[in-house]
């Protein structure tokens, strides 16, 4: 049951053109673009600074924006009620979506990682393991935020907000411009955003000694808060 549900959800995501654009094509384009073209100044090798940003972006794109929009329209089309009326236990209704979300993140990280290696990225094994762990944590946190948004509002509103938030966090949320290059007051706030925390964590994990406790704590707090609120506000239709 769980696997059938997760498989269907994964397949639907991978079949949807807009989802592919959001979860793979845009991150791929930005990974190649920022590595090969001098748009922002980065230390050499450029790919080492670009990969953590793109990993964070990829996780946010699929787990938050993609999930929110899909959920918004799934509710509109009554699929949650349909599934809730079957023998599928309630926890599996959530579990299938989580599993599908993690599968998509895994596919993204593999595709982007392979491309990055082709662009000259040579990560350490601990760095890779840490980034996978952070990827899972990030996917759960952003996934909870995505469910909070997609499970509460009307589909059209979800579509608009999920894209606007994605764009704002990409530009000003510590992904393209890292918190450390921002004025100190702003930087503190950005580091407390899930996007800033995930980017910092990925950066320290891949280029330092581990993700550090602050990004992990920030992601956990956002994730728990979003889950608790979403548990109360999410509606089937």
């Amino acid at each position, binding site marked *: *049951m769980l696997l*059938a*549900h997760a498989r269907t959800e994964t397949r639907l995501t991978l079949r949807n053109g807009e989802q592919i654009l959001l979860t793979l094509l845009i991150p791929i384009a930005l990974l190649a673009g920022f590595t090969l073209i001098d748009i922002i100044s980065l230390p050499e090798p450029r790919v080492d600074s670009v990969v953590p940003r793109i990993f964070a972006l990829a996780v946010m794109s699929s787990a938050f924006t993609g999930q929110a929009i899909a959920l918004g329209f799934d509710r*509109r089309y009554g*699929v949650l009620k*349909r*599934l*809730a*009326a079957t*023998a599928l236990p309630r926890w599996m209704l959530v579990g299938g979506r989580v599993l599908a979300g993690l599968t998509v993140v895994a596919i993204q990280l593999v595709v982007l990682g392979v491309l990055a290696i082709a662009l000259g990225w040579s990560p350490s094994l601990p760095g890779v393991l840490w980034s996978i762990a952070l990827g899972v944590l990030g996917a759960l946190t952003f996934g909870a935020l995505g469910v909070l948004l997609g499970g509460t509002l009307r589909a059209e509103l979800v579509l608009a907000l999920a894209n606007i938030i994605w764009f704002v966090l990409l530009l000003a949320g510590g992904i393209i411009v890292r918190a450390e290059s921002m004025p100190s007051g702003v930087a503190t706030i950005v580091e407390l955003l899930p996007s800033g925390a995930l980017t910092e964590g990925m950066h320290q994990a891949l280029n330092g000694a581990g993700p550090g406790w602050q990004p992990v704590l920030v992601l956990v707090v956002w994730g728990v808060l979003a889950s608790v609120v979403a548990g109360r506000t999410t509606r089937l239709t």
Partner: protein
Amino acid sequence: MSASETRPAVEVSGLVKRYGSTTAVDGLELRLAHGKVLALLGPNGAGKTTTVEVCEGFLRPDAGRVRVLGLDPHADSGELRPRIGVMPQGGGAYPGVRAGEMLKLVASCAANPLKPDWLLDVLGLTNVLKTPYKRLSGGQQQRLSLACALVGRPELVFLDEPTSGMDPQARRLVWDMVAALRADGVSVLLTTHLMEEAETLADHVVIVDHGRVVAEGSPAQLTTEDPDCQQLRFKARAGLDTSLLTAALPEGCHVAEAASGTYIVTGRVDPQVVSTVTAWCAQQGVLAEELHVGRRSLEDVFLELTGRELR
């Protein structure tokens, strides 16, 4: 007969459900015998869907007692859901999912499902197996939804407006399915505002309005009335002057042009009355078509009970 078969499939008493200050269901009573078909009939906003959703465990009642297959639909939801089939109003599937995929997914949630391919064939959906849900017609979406409700071999099915948006062929198909379910001993609770549907399918019709039961019984019971209140209907040219006919009819009989070209004589309709009507028609030089003497239709009962104003 086992114990579960002597107990009603659905038993609702004193059900109350409020949304804020509106009372959607107001003390409703309902009883669906095992293996029978019950039609919940009522105008829009009468509380039909709310009642069904309480029985399915989606909504919690504010008051009253609800037992479905002997279980509390909310508290025993996990035990109940594998035994019931649900067709929600307006269907339900992922917008991008293919019809075949959706049914297979729902089938995978059941312990001993029917073969999805067979069911799709029976419901005439084989040619849209690979069509995404959002590109199916309204009637096809409804049929897929019915398939999803039936694939788990339920003992009891809830069909919320099962034929809305369907063409007459598809509607007949669904009616045949419901009849087949009944023949197999499956209990069916359906909502509709189609009189013909209720009359054709239901063993028991419950007419609800403003969240209350206003009448119930078998279709025959509901439409039987006293002999002084029968009807004779016929069709003829519109706008005939009926004053001569009124004068010729025995006392207590009334004639009216109910709709353009449809005349209804109400009262004690005996052979003499029929003869008077046809003689009058001959005088007028018109042929009375579709001349019919009989009981009130379920629609007459329904309109009488729920009023004629639009909701």
